[in-house]
C-alpha cells in the first residue's frame, strides 16, 4: 500500500490533445516510464479519505475480499494496520478511534460474524461513532453465490462512505486460446463458458447480465451466438448464418444486437432484433470499406463504430437507425494511427478506444460533446478497453509485463493494476452491476 501511495504522489498530470499526436507521445513517454501510469484528469493526492479495515475474527475470507474490493475501488487511501493491531474482537466500543485517527484514517470498516451472515459497521473515526451498520445474509463460503454477495457488501460500504456504489459485484468475460471465460471483478473464480478447441471471440454482455453474445469462428466464417449464463445451449442470431459475423453489442434495453457482417463486398454494421428473433437491418453501406465494432450510447440513440471509409480504421458515430453518420474521434490523415475497439462509457460522456502510436496500440478517450481526444496509456501495447459500470475504471489488455494480460486503469487517479489471468487473455468485456438473479459461475 505504501508503495502505491508513493506512486500516486509522484504522478504527473497530463493532458494530451489529438491535434499533435507525435509531440504528445514524446511528451508523455518520459512520465510513463517513471511510474508506468498515465493520468488524463487532474488528481490531487490526499483528497481520498483514508480507510482502515479493522482487525476482527471469524470472517477472515469476507474481510479479505472486502479489503481488496475497497482498495480496487480507488476511492480510498487504504490505511495498513499497525504491526501489533489493537483489540481484535469486541463491539464498536472497543475500537481505538484515537489510534486510527493518528494513522490518517477517516473511516473504519468492521465485519463481525452474525447469525446466517455478517454485521458490517462503518465507523466515522474523527467523530468516534458508528456511521452505518447493517447485517447482511451470507451463504457458506463454499456456496457459488458467496463471492458475489460479499462483493455486494463492498459496494454498499463504498456507497455509505462516498455516496457512490462500488463495482465489485460485477464480472468479466474474456477470451484465452479461443475459449471464453468468466471471472469475478477481482480476477478470482475463473470459469470457462465455451468449449475448448474452438475459436470463440468477442464476448459481450446482455445488459441484464443473464446472457452473453459472441462470435464462433468456423472455417473462416462465423456466426453470432447468444448463450444463457444459467446453462443451456447457445442460439444463433438470425441472419448470421452466412459469411463472417463479428463484434456483437447489445442495445441498452437488450432488445437489439448490433454486429458487423463481412462478405466479399466488405464489412458493414447490421442490427438484429434479438427480442423478436427477426429482422436484421443494415446500417452502413461501405462498398469495399469496413464498418465494424458497434457500441451503443447508454441512451440507445447512437452507435459508435470503426470505419475504414477514409483509409485506416477510425472511430465514427451514427444514429441507431444508421442515419447521421459522422466522424467521432478526430485524426490527422496520414499521421494518426489506426483506431479500433470503441466502447461507449456508461455515463455517455466518453468513448474509449485504442489507437496505434508508433505501431503500438494505446488507450484513448474522446469526449462526445467536445470531440477532444486524450491518451491514457503509453507503456507497452494497450488495447481492447472495456468500461466498468462506474465509468471511471477501464479494463484492457496490456503486454507491459511481457505477456498479454488484463489490467485496470482508474482514469480519475491514474492507478494501474493487473488482474491475474491464465494464458494470453484478450477481448475482455466488463458487466454492469449484477443483480440478485445473476447466475453463479
Amino acid at each position, binding site marked *: 500500500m505504501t508503495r502505491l501511495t508513493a506512486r500516486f504522489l509522484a504522478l504527473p498530470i497530463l493532458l494530451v490533445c489529438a491535434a499533435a499526436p507525435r509531440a504528445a507521445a514524446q511528451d508523455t513517454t518520459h512520465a510513463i516510464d517513471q511510474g508506468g501510469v498515465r493520468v488524463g484528469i487532474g488528481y490531487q493526492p490526499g483528497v481520498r479519505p483514508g480507510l482502515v479495515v479493522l482487525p476482527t475474527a471469524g470472517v477472515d475470507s469476507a474481510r479479505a475480499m472486502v479489503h481488496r474490493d475497497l482498495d480496487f475501488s480507488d476511492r480510498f487511501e487504504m490505511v495498513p494496520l499497525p504491526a501489533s493491531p489493537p483489540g481484535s474482537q469486541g463491539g464498536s466500543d472497543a475500537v481505538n478511534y484515537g489510534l486510527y485517527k493518528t494513522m490518517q484514517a477517516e473511516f473504519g470498516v468492521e465485519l463481525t460474524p452474525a447469525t446466517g451472515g455478517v454485521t458490517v459497521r462503518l465507523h466515522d473515526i474523527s467523530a468516534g461513532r458508528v456511521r452505518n451498520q447493517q447485517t447482511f445474509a451470507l451463504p457458506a463460503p463454499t456456496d457459488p453465490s458467496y463471492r458475489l454477495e460479499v462483493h455486494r457488501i463492498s459496494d454498499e460500504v463504498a456507497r455509505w462512505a462516498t455516496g457512490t456504489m462500488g463495482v465489485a459485484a460485477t464480472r468479466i468475460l474474456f477470451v484465452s486460446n*479461443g475459449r471464453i471465460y468468466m471471472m469475478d471483478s477481482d480476477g478470482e473464480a475463473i470459469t470457462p463458458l465455451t468449449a475448448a478447441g474452438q*475459436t470463440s*471471440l*468477442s464476448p459481450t454482455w446482455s445488459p441484464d447480465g443473464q446472457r452473453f453474445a459472441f462470435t464462433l*469462428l468456423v*472455417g*473462416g*466464417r*462465423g456466426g453470432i451466438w447468444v448463450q444463457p449464463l444459467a446453462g443451456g445451449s447457445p442460439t444463433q442470431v438470425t441472419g448470421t448464418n452466412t459469411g*463472417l459475423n*463479428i*463484434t456483437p453489442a447489445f442495445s441498452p434495453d437488450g432488445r437489439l444486437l448490433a454486429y*458487423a457482417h*463481412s*462478405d*466479399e*463486398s*466488405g*464489412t458493414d454494421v447490421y442490427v438484429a432484433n434479438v427480442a423478436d428473433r427477426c429482422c436484421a437491418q443494415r446500417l452502413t453501406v461501405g462498398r*469495399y470499406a*469496413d464498418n*465494424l*465494432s458497434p457500441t451503443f450510447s447508454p441512451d440507445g440513440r447512437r452507435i459508435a463504430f*470503426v470505419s*475504414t471509409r477514409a483509409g*485506416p*480504421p477510425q472511430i465514427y458515430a451514427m444514429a441507431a437507425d444508421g442515419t447521421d453518420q459522422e466522424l467521432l474521434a478526430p485524426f490527422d490523415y496520414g499521421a494518426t494511427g*489506426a483506431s*479500433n*475497439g470503441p466502447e461507449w462509457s456508461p455515463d455517455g460522456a466518453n468513448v474509449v478506444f*485504442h489507437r*496505434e502510436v508508433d*505501431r503500438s*496500440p494505446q488507450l484513448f478517450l474522446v469526449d462526445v460533446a467536445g470531440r477532444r481526444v486524450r491518451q491514457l496509456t503509453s507503456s507497452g501495447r494497450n*488495447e*481492447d478497453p472495456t468500461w466498468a459500470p462506474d465509468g471511471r475504471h477501464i479494463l484492457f489488455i496490456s503486454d507491459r509485463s511481457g505477456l498479454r494480460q488484463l489490467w485496470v486503469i482508474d482514469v480519475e487517479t491514474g492507478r494501474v493494476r493487473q488482474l491475474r489471468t491464465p494464458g494470453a487473455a*484478450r*477481448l475482455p468485456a466488463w458487466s454492469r452491476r449484477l443483480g440478485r438473479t445473476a447466475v453463479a459461475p
Partner: protein
Amino acid sequence: MRATPTLLVLALAGLAAACGGKPKPEQPAPEPTPAATPAPAAAPDADSIARAREDSIRAAQAAGAERINAVKADLAAMINFDYDQAVIRQADQATLDRKAAILAANPNVKVQISGHADERGSDEYNLALGNRRAGAAKRYLENKGIDASRMDVVSYGEERPLNTGHDEAAYAQNRRDEFQVTAGGDSLVAPQ
C-alpha cells in the same frame, strides 16, 4: 513450366525408340566388313526392350505428374500484403495471372480464398482486413474473366499465423491470401 514440353518430347522419343523392334527397310544392308558388323551385340533382347518401354512410360508419367504438380503449386501459391493493406502488390499480379489461366483452362475447378493478417492491429479488425484481402484477390481474378461463383471468400484474421514469430519477417509471411481447391482438383490440365 517452360521445360515441360521439352521433357515430354524427349520422353515420347524414348518411347518410340524403345518400341522400334521392327525392320528398318530404308537402311542399306551392312557392308561385309567384319569391323562394321556389330549386329548380334546391338540387337536388344526382349527383356531390355520391355525394360526400356517401362522406363519411358514412367518418364512420361513423371513428366505429366510434374506438370500437374506445377499447376497445383501455381494454384496454391500465396500472395502477401503490406501492413494494414488489402491492395494486390505488383509482384503478386503474375501469381494471380497464372491462377487465372489455370482456372480458365479448368472450368470445373473451384477455389476458396482465405485472407489472413499479422498479429499486430486489432484482433477484430484483422478479421475484416483478412476478408478484404481475400475479396481483393477474388475481384482481381474476376476481372481476368473467372466467374465469381467459382471463388469463395473467407477470413481467419490473425487466428492462423503461418509463422508464429514476432518479428517483421514473420509478420510479412502472415499477411497473406491462401488458395485452396475445393472442387475439380482431380483432373487438372495445364493452361495452353
